[in-house]
């Protein structure tokens, strides 16, 4: 059982997301993360799904997704060379005079942006792969994370290759 990253091209139609997510819950597949947005094709969206399962389950996920009329292409890009990114916004305690300097130092090591400063908190914006964000989160815990918002993972193939609808 390992996490698989699926890049799913779908028609940009009402209800398509609930068709996809409904299928996962109905068939007992666990979604670890999900990100959806428009893509290079005007009438399509791309969904990046991270799902955990064994090979047999993944085969079923792939086939069942393909059965949905609005799903155009499903690619398991887990074992392909990809660049992956997630975005997180983290509101962390940062009292002026005490922890604020340390928090800002950690932020700069992680190339995180400070995007908001409050009287006792700051908001960091960080992008990277899951490991990097997890590491930052762990470090910031000691100061007290007030709120954390994370997007699902998105991924793209390295080099000239693309995941696109076969015409």
């Amino acid at each position: 059982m390992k996490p698989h990253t699926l890049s799913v091209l779908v028609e940009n139609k009402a209800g398509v997301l609930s068709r996809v997510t409904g299928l996962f819950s109905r068939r007992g597949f666990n979604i670890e993360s999900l990100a959806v947005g428009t893509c290079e094709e005007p009438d399509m969206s791309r969904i990046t799904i991270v799902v955990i399962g064994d090979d047999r389950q993944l085969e079923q996920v792939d086939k069942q997704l393909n059965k949905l009329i609005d799903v155009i292409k499903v690619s398991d890009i887990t074992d392909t060379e990809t660049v992956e990114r997630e975005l997180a916004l983290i509101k962390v305690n940062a009292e002026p005079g005490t922890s604020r300097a340390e928090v800002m130092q950690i932020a700069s090591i992680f190339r995180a942006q400070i995007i908001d400063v409050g009287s006792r908190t700051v908001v960091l914006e960080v992008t990277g792969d899951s490991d990097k964000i997890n590491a930052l989160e762990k470090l910031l815990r000691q100061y007290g994370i007030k709120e954390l918002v994370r997007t699902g993972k998105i991924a793209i193939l390295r080099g000239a290759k693309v995941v696109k609808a076969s015409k």
Partner: protein
Amino acid sequence: MKTGARILIEGLQREGVETIFGYPGGVVLPIYDELYDSSLQHILVRHEQAAAHAADGYARASGRVGVCLATSGPGACNLVTGIATAYMDSVPIIALTGQVPTNLLGNDAFQEADITGITLPITKHNYLVKQTKDLTRIIHEAFYIARTGRPGPVLVDLPKDVSTTQLEEETETIPAIVLPGYKPTFKGHVKQIERAVELIERAERPVIYAGGGVIAANASAELVELAMREFIPVTTTLMGLGAIPCDHPMNLGMLGMHGTEYANYAVTESDLLIAIGARFDDRVTGRIQTFAPHATIIHIDVDPAEIGKNKPVDVPIVGDAKAILQGMLGRLKKRAEREPWLSKVRYWKEKHPLRYRQDGKLRPQYIIRKLSELLDGRGVIVSEVGQNQMWTAQHFCFRRPRSWLTSGGLGTMGYGFPAAMGAHFAQPNEPVFDIAGDGSFQMNIQELGTVAAYNIPVKVAILNNMYLGMVRQWQELFYDRRYSYTELPAVDFVKIANAYGIDGMQVEDIGDVEEALKTALATDGPFIMDFRIEREENVFPMVPAGAAINEMIGGHES
């Protein structure tokens, strides 16, 4: 100018629809107004569930797409069981539902139900039509999706204003189908077909396991030819009955939980299992690990998701069963014989035939065999669910595809009677029988009103045991005869039929069975037979839940 309702009706006619089954209500008034002077035949049922089952029965018996129509909210929700039934058995139907006007959608408006949401997991696809201009395309797509690839139900939800909005007369061009995400595979992979042929030529103990997909693909002739030319015994699933004539020398009857002993033994000992349009359902396989344990498995199916879903297979071939079988037949050399395998199978058949007690008491198997004898290959037989269904599957001799309709995957009590109505419109010259249990019949008994009103000549044979018989059987065998809520009080079904103006006959004596059946056959309209059968008759043989299919109980030695 043309209303959406008009466009809808014209779209249905363009798809070749002649009969639809429905029930009116507020938001479908514009559609009903169009139906009023349309050439489409509309059958008014007494409950929307029956409309869905009737459309399903029509589709199974004809091989064409069945259509049902209901109003929004409660009407649409009443279709749900029928849609799920069609979905599980891959039956092409179109469910048209009314919906509240688009400006009220999502407001909990009167009689609003999110039917596209509700039916998401039980339709092949569904549509909520938002604009009248999309209607022509959507109707065309819906039929295309329903009948191609692995067939299935498609629901089209029609807000009232979509039906009333008028459009400029458009040029009568049907839009081309553009569905980039839907490309069903038709032709099987040549390499795989060649591998399958090689395996068949090498096999010593092959068995064909044929499912409903053979019938859906109209591939029965090819199946029988393969069996005959290569001397391969054929067992069918509940859904596959009729794909090969029951009295064909290669036929083993049904396999699985209530299958024949010889079919289950043959599968268990086979060295090559050729699954065609079947899906390794748990009622068929018993304990999956011990299903066909010595066999190399070829799996032919139009739905790639069925391949390897329940059981790993060696040679998957995705595509249309008819095309693939033709491809195989074109490559296979005719075989001289296949002994000693066939003699072993013959031995099992002789030693463990399907039997029942013949002691002069009124037993259901006798009634079914008698009917089978009288019809002699004619007719469409529909069943309800429970013992009645299994006795019919075991004892009726089906000779042609589309002559047997039953709810296999969902096992829907109440399916039979309305499906039988639909079957009549598909095969109007064939006698149609619903073999029922007293429990199941009461689930859609209101359709007596429909068959009476249109004089639909459906004959109902109620195998009345005053029990929910199949559940009682399990209680007898596995719950120490604690008959918890499975006894049904006696009902005078003939009187109920009479109240609708329908004739009927109550039969208590085995000597009266033939006369009742002949009277039914000779009656022009509907007819009800209330057979008071031995109350605690069981369906045997039987594979207990979780056992291997060759571990049957209640079998017979001849």
